[in-house]
């Protein structure tokens, strides 16, 4: 007897994730018109907006001037990319804690395949309950608490204040659409694309590749996903290119396979600066962080391919920059050179600095010297070996036989033992 297992994708949606995290404990902000301020030094576009601000016609991605013109009482919340990254990572780890292979989207949106988990948690409902409990920091069935509740003595983690919306569907897009119309503690399941025929085309904005389509489609009078599905593919391809074809596939129930992330290890070093630091003081702090990160034993001699440099600013808010090295390296001098320039982008003095390994490279760097110099390489390895031997067995562990008078008739005058100086 053949058993056919239907694919059911589960989507976890945390609405206004970045805004809630940036607002921190100030819940009242979310009840009034508020938006994420543009990041310093970047384009002056606002981020996520509160429902009250939406009522004034303020939308994400709008120019700051236009947003303030539409809503004069609009509160600007300083962005907190560092907090968003931390909280989102905690949420993903929590989902992975129930056994899910998670494909993260933008912060606040993640999907996973429930096929293997349904047996583990009893049913699809069991999977959804487990995901909800994990995200809320609850511990069903005696499992340990996964979400950290924040620093000692501080407010609980922002994720515990978020109310996840859960949706399920046969494809990623249908699951995301289901989650977007789900209510708190009331997961929504979509069995096929026909159930979404009446949904607005704005749902396409949840997917990065089709985010630009809702506006032009609305202007053409195509307001629902059902309208879009009824259009000929050729016409969509002519008008919108690859994005149009993808949108048609999505609303027709076709989508690509999930690409789960590989659960990684967290390797980071942070430094609290006693007073607001900038310039040379900050560079020294960065140098110390690099040295400490490279000295970590759990790095296991691997090179670093990408790191994340972040800072907590004295003016409030945080700053975060991901740096991908041209080649994987573990040389502190080259890392200082590559990261030092990024410190100049800091919009304000910092009170804390953090360096995090994002991607690892191979244990040995792939780079080669311009000229292969075997002698120099051998000498370097010998120097290292001598250093290690002396560290273990004392200074007499490595000595050099030094010829003094090889022709002498008195044997003890011919050679002497001298300390090895590589």
């Amino acid at each position, binding site marked *: 007897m053949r058993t056919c297992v239907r694919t059911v994708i589960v989507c976890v949606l945390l609405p206004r994730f970045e805004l809630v995290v940036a607002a921190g404990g100030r819940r009242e902000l979310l009840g009034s018109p508020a938006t994420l301020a543009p990041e310093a030094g970047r384009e002056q576009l606002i981020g996520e907006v509160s429902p009250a601000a939406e009522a004034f016609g303020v939308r994400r991605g709008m120019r700051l001037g236009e947003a303030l013109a539409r809503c004069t009482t609009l509160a600007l919340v300083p962005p907190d990319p560092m907090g968003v990254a931390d909280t989102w990572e905690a949420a993903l780890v929590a989902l992975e804690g129930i056994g899910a292979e998670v494909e993260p989207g933008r912060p606040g949106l993640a999907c996973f395949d429930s096929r293997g988990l349904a047996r583990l948690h009893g049913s699809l409902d069991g999977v959804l309950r487990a995901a909800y409990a994990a995200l809320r920091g609850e511990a069903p069935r005696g499992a340990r608490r996964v979400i950290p509740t924040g620093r000692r003595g501080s407010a609980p983690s922002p994720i515990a204040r978020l109310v996840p919306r859960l949706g399920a569907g046969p494809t990623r897009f249908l699951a995301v659409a289901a989650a977007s119309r789900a209510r708190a503690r009331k997961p929504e399941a979509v069995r096929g694309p026909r159930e979404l025929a009446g949904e607005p085309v704005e749902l396409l904005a949840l997917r990065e590749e089709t985010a630009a389509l809702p506006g032009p489609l609305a202007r053409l009078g195509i307001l629902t996903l059902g309208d879009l599905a009824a259009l000929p593919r050729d016409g969509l391809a002519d008008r919108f290119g690859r994005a149009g074809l993808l949108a048609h596939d999505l609303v027709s129930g076709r989508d690509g396979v999930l690409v789960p992330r590989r659960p990684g290890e967290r390797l980071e070093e942070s430094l609290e600066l006693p007073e607001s630091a900038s310039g040379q003081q900050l560079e020294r702090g960065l140098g110390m962080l690099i040295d400490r990160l490279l000295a970590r034993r759990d790095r296991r001699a691997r090179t670093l391919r990408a790191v994340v440099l972040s800072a907590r600013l004295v003016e409030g808010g945080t700053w975060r920059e991901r740096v991908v090295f041209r080649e994987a390296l573990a040389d502190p001098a080259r890392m200082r050179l590559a990261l030092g320039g990024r410190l100049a982008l800091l919009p304000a003095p910092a009170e804390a600095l953090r360096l995090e390994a994002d991607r690892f490279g191979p244990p040995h760097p792939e780079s080669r010297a311009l000229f292969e110099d075997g002698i120099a390489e051998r000498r370097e390895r010998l120097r290292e070996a001598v250093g290690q031997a002396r560290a273990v067995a*004392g*200074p007499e562990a490595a000595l050099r036989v030094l010829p003094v008078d090889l022709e002498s*008739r*008195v044997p*003890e*005058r*011919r*050679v*002497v033992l*001298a300390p090895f100086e590589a």
Partner: protein
Amino acid sequence: MARAGARAASSGPRRLARPQPSRVRARENDGRPLVVDGRMVEAVRESWLVEDRWWTDAPLRRRYWEVVTACGRDLVVFRDLVAGRWYSQR
């Protein structure tokens, strides 16, 4: 490591092949070794005299013997002609 390096530097160069005191029974007339550290001497391969620093207060006068013992070992011993003691040396 820094402390180890300092100790290494203070120890300085050390001579190799320093003479080691040895127990030798020799013939009375010509000083030919018969027993070296309890091993019977089977044959004498070579003998030579070294005289040095005779112009100083610490002159060096040695009669060297390269011998083969009954157990097959090749040894070099010498008699310090100033102090009258025997030493082995490689």
